[in-house]
């Protein structure tokens, strides 16, 4: 009986002696289910379960190995084909590998070891492929429209309509909204429900990349392009080819680089640093920012032509405080997910706890709510989470900090850490908010480390 982890291997070999030898060699592993065929016709007439691996004699009656290989690839593209030949002919081997054969083994004394090791390698890579495919399905499920965009408030419903539209067409999307409103979740929801869902989703936080490294990060570089470029590296545009490139915090992008980005978006091609050859790229752009880009254009901080280039579907995510009872729907969803992931019995929110959540303004938006409810699940002792077990940021934190009686310097660090957390480590923004220089922040961080 075929086991869950067994491999089906078909042997196509017209030489009776070799056919038996290959079947015997492969049958030594009980996980392999082997079936032998003596001609291509016999094989193509077979209507049983398709093989994972096929060993194919190169010289067969009526058809040569290459012709059989092409037909196998047409009817069973997932099967890996190992060509077995009498000739140690490097040109034939290269041609067959180019045509999709997995390996080329010569009928010589080492055939048993070569064959078993090749089958083992295929098994390993097939296990990896299965795991990747499972993970991809899990990610797609996670960002399924129904489970990722939660809420029934009018504010989120109009946003949902736009997200649905963005899913249907491969148009550029700009997502704006306060920090923590779920810009990346919205971008992933669009990607994983769109026609590009089986291709990569690549996210880049532009505020976290120093200005002089942005070009290399996005466009890649050739070996020796600059000091430290010890090997060729492809950039995020090429990584996202066929899929979606999510440019987070695009409002923070250095104005000098904006012209290059505009050119890449217009021409749909990039040039790696140190190269003169343009590389065609096909990726959908989703840009996000917490800033009002139109204001940035007026202030001369964002190129007008780039602004219009990015101007596709514009989605503004509402802050949580404007989403009414969505707070409770989201809280219940986070509790459910957290309990499930941590194998904790399901918990609910008491009426008082619900009131407490509804009365809070959540300046950190959905991200803050998630942290608050997850902590509440951990802290709660019963099946129902009580209001007293919900620790909201703000006054509670401030009071507890004051009780700690820290030094002035320690308080400064606490404030800095809180702001960095709040603004996704965006140093430029934190400097603005605290009205201090960026160099002061770097100095404090250095001492802190």
């Amino acid at each position, binding site marked *: 009986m075929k086991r869950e982890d067994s491999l089906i291997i078909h042997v196509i070999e017209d*030489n*009776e*002696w070799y056919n038996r*030898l290959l079947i*015997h*060699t492969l049958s030594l592993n009980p996980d392999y289910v082997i079936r032998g065929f003596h001609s291509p016709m016999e094989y193509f007439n077979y209507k049983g379960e398709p093989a994972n691996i096929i060993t194919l004699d190169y010289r067969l009656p009526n058809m040569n190995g290459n012709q059989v290989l092409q037909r196998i690839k047409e009817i069973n593209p997932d099967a890996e084909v190992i060509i077995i030949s009498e000739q140690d002919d490097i040109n034939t081997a290269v041609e067959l590998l180019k045509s999709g054969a997995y390996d080329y083994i010569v009928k010589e004394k080492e055939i048993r070891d070569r064959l078993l090791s090749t089958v083992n390698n295929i098994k390993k890579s097939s296990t990896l492929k299965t795991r990747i495919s499972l993970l991809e399905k899990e990610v797609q499920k996670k960002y399924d429209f129904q489970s990722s965009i939660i809420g029934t408030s009018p504010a989120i419903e109009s946003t949902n309509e736009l997200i649905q539209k963005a899913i249907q067409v491969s148009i550029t999307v700009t997502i704006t909204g306060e920090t923590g409103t779920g810009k990346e979740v919205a971008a992933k929801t669009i990607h994983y429900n769109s026609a590009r869902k089986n291709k990569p989703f690549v996210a880049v936080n532009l505020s976290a990349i120093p200005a002089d490294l942005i070009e290399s990060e996005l466009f890649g570089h050739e070996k020796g392009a600059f000091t430290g470029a010890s090997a060729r590296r492809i950039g995020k545009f090429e990584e996202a080819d066929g899929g979606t490139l999510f440019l987070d915090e695009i409002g923070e992008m250095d104005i000098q680089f904006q012209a290059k980005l505009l050119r890449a978006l217009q021409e749909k091609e990039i040039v790696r640093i140190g190269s003169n050859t343009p590389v065609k790229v096909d990726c959908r752009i989703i840009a996000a920012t917490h800033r009002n880009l139109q204001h940035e254009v007026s202030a001369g901080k964002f190129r007008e032509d780039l602004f219009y280039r990015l101007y596709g579907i514009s989605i503004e995510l509402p802050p949580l405080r404007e989403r009414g009872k969505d707070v409770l729907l989201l809280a219940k969803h986070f509790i459910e997910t957290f309990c499930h992931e941590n194998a904790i019995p399901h918990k609910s929110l008491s009426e008082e706890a619900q009131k407490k959540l509804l009365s809070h303004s959540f300046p950190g938006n959905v991200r803050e709510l998630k942290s608050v409810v997850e902590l509440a699940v951990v802290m709660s002792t019963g099946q129902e989470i009580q209001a007293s077990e919900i620790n909201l940021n703000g006054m509670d934190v401030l009071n507890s900090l004051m009780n700690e009686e820290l030094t002035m310097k320690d308080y400064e660090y606490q404030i800095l850490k809180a702001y960095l957390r709040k603004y996704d480590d965006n140093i430029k923004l934190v400097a603005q908010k605290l009205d201090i220089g960026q160099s002061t922040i770097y100095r404090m961080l250095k001492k802190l480390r």
Partner: protein
Amino acid sequence: MENDADKAFNLDELERLSEGDEKFVTEMIGIFINTTQSGLDEIEQSLKKEDFKVVSAYAHKIATPCLHMGALNLHAVLKKIEQTADQTTHRAHLEKLVSEARILTDKLILDLKKLLPDNQ
């Protein structure tokens, strides 16, 4: 002293491939006898018909098992038949090689049959 190249066959390689399965060794000897004999018959008939392509194909087909059965002399002659038949210009030489293969095969099969139970 007789060296490996002079022996009609050597089953060390087949025994290694069998992983201790004696039934498998016997089965493979039986298949070898049948396929080599019928293959050589095909070679002789095709040579009479001057179908050199078929001569080459059969020589090619039965040569490789000889390698694993340690029948190195027969393997060498069969490879020569394959190459000569591909060129098709040396009929006399080809006939000589096929006769040589017949003598080697008959001797080899006679010896191998002695290893089979009840001398099948």
